[in-house]
């Protein structure tokens, strides 16, 4: 081996200097790239939160959805304030003219229920400038989906006539034409009705007894038409609702998150799966539910229900905390008055064709037992009645409200009731 010459001194320093140069360059690269990654993380949060905020407004009002999404994007990206959103169809662009941009598509992939938010941010570099890279373009996206909540809190727009309920009264299967008991408490129209069957109607629905010109003797609440809210008087649908009813049911049971599925989309959850426990027939041995609020004139005698003598609609009692409140198989049905002075038509026990007023005198919360298969959607509708105790809670901890949301008047089908 050659002997190291006298002039070899300083080699270590030279090598360290070279290595240090690479280290510093690597550190500089790390600073710029991690800065971009940090920006990407923040932008992803911005995209997610703005998409989740704006999606509530679609599909009804895509323009409002864009505005809300942009507002939340700007709130989470403070340096972007002070500009204007440019709308084009179902898309909107909000930019600062320097490449930073918020883009919102309120009908992503042509689907009016999907929203996409794309954030484009120009991130300046610290050390990249030395090699001609003044900035890094960061692009993050979020796509979110608006799904109507299908649950027992929404009113199913079908009228069940008091005293003649047998669990399948609103059956359109045997009819070619007719309104099948269709109500339009929100607004009229076949598509509105179809969507109401699919998703239920959110709102505050009350009951009313006695003369329409006098306040309800139990609650003191007057008769109010349902184009206002809260309300207790609904109009019927004048047209043929057979088609919309079946379409609505198909949409209602299109629930890929159910425990029981047929063909990957049809919710076939059993009563036990909806309740999270085996159902308890009303009046079973050892089960003595309170009877407050029970009206023989509406439901038949309690003894009859307790002994499960109803031919079609079985009665069950539930007072647990595992109720799957979002199940589309859970629905609340208004029981309507058939007094002739309420203009129900001349034949008791039938609903009128043509627009008429009917009033709600009570509510049933039901489990829709049939159709239990896809093929059954066009066939008979059968249901069981669930009576809920005061301790009922949804499986996610929410209190269960049989119908409506909040209000000064008790309503619904609570056994313990005013």
């Amino acid at each position, binding site marked *: *081996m050659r*002997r*190291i010459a*006298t002039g*070899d*001194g*300083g080699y*270590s*320093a030279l090598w*360290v200097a070279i290595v*240090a140069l690479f*280290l*510093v360059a690597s*550190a500089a690269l*790390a600073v710029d790239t*991690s800065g971009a990654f*940090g920006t990407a*993380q*923040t932008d992803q*949060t911005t995209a*997610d*939160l703005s998409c*989740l*905020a704006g999606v*509530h407004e679609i599909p009804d009002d895509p323009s*409002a959805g864009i*505005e*809300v999404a942009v*507002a*939340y994007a700007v*709130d*989470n990206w403070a340096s972007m304030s002070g500009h204007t959103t440019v709308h084009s169809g179902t898309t909107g662009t909000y930019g600062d003219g320097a490449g930073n941009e918020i883009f919102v598509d309120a009908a992503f992939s042509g689907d009016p229920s999907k929203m996409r938010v794309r954030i484009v941010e120009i991130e300046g570099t610290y050390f990249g400038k030395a090699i001609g890279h003044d900035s890094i373009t960061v692009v993050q996206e979020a796509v979110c989906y608006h799904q109507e*909540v299908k649950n027992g809190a929404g009113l199913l727009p079908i009228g069940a006539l008091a005293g003649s309920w047998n669990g399948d009264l609103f059956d359109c299967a045997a009819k070619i034409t007719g309104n099948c008991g269709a109500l339009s408490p929100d607004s009229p129209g076949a598509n509105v009705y179809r969507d109401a069957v699919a998703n239920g109607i*959110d709102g505050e629905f009350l009951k009313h007894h006695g003369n329409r010109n006098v306040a309800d003797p139990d609650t003191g609440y007057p008769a109010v038409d349902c184009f206002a809210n809260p309300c207790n008087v609904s109009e019927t649908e004048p047209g043929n609702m057979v088609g919309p009813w079946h379409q609505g049911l198909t949409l209602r049971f299109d629930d890929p998150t159910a425990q029981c599925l047929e063909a990957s989309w049809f919710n076939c959850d059993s009563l036990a799966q909806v309740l999270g426990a085996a159902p308890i027939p009303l009046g079973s041995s050892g089960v003595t539910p309170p009877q407050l609020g029970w009206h023989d004139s509406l439901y038949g005698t309690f003894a009859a229900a307790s002994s499960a003598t109803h031919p079609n609609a079985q009665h069950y009692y539930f007072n647990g905390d595992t109720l799957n409140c979002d199940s589309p198989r859970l629905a609340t049905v208004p029981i309507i008055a058939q007094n002739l002075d309420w203009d129900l038509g001349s034949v008791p026990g039938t609903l009128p064709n043509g627009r008429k007023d009917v009033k709600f005198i009570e509510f049933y919360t039901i489990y829709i037992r049939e159709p239990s298969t896809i093929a059954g959607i066009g066939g008979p509708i059968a249901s069981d009645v669930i009576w809920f105790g005061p301790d009922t809670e949804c499986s996610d901890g929410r209190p269960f409200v049989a119908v409506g*949301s909040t209000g000064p008047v008790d309503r619904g089908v609570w056994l313990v009731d005013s």
Partner: protein
Amino acid sequence: MGLSTKERGSALVEAALILPFLLLLTFGIWTTARAWNVNNTIAHAARETARHGATIDPWDAAASPEAARAVADADMASASIDTRVITDCIELVANGATSTCDPGHTNTTGTDQVLVRLRYPGYRLEFLFFSSTIDLEGTAISRHEAAP
């Protein structure tokens, strides 16, 4: 074969000269990476807290911020951050209102929103021979999803 007498120890001397810089660089990378991780964790915690807060309905001004903060604390504790030093501003800001804990923020979105701002004031950067402090912060604002 050995070095000549006058070269003996030169590598040691050179290493001794360079070592402080290498240590400074190494500690600088370590402490900066740690600060970066803490900052990311706080940002993530703010986001998770905002999403959780969005689903608290009804919002209770006394109890809900504490419930939401528990989510942030769980996130930060998992990253070994001393949650006691983290200050927060967690609030339901009604449409058109100005935040009380962050007066610089006014809600103009047309909806009620949950504001979450988490701060780590005076985070200490250790560079072996000296230290410095910076303020770390994570902010997220989500739409409050009240029941219809």
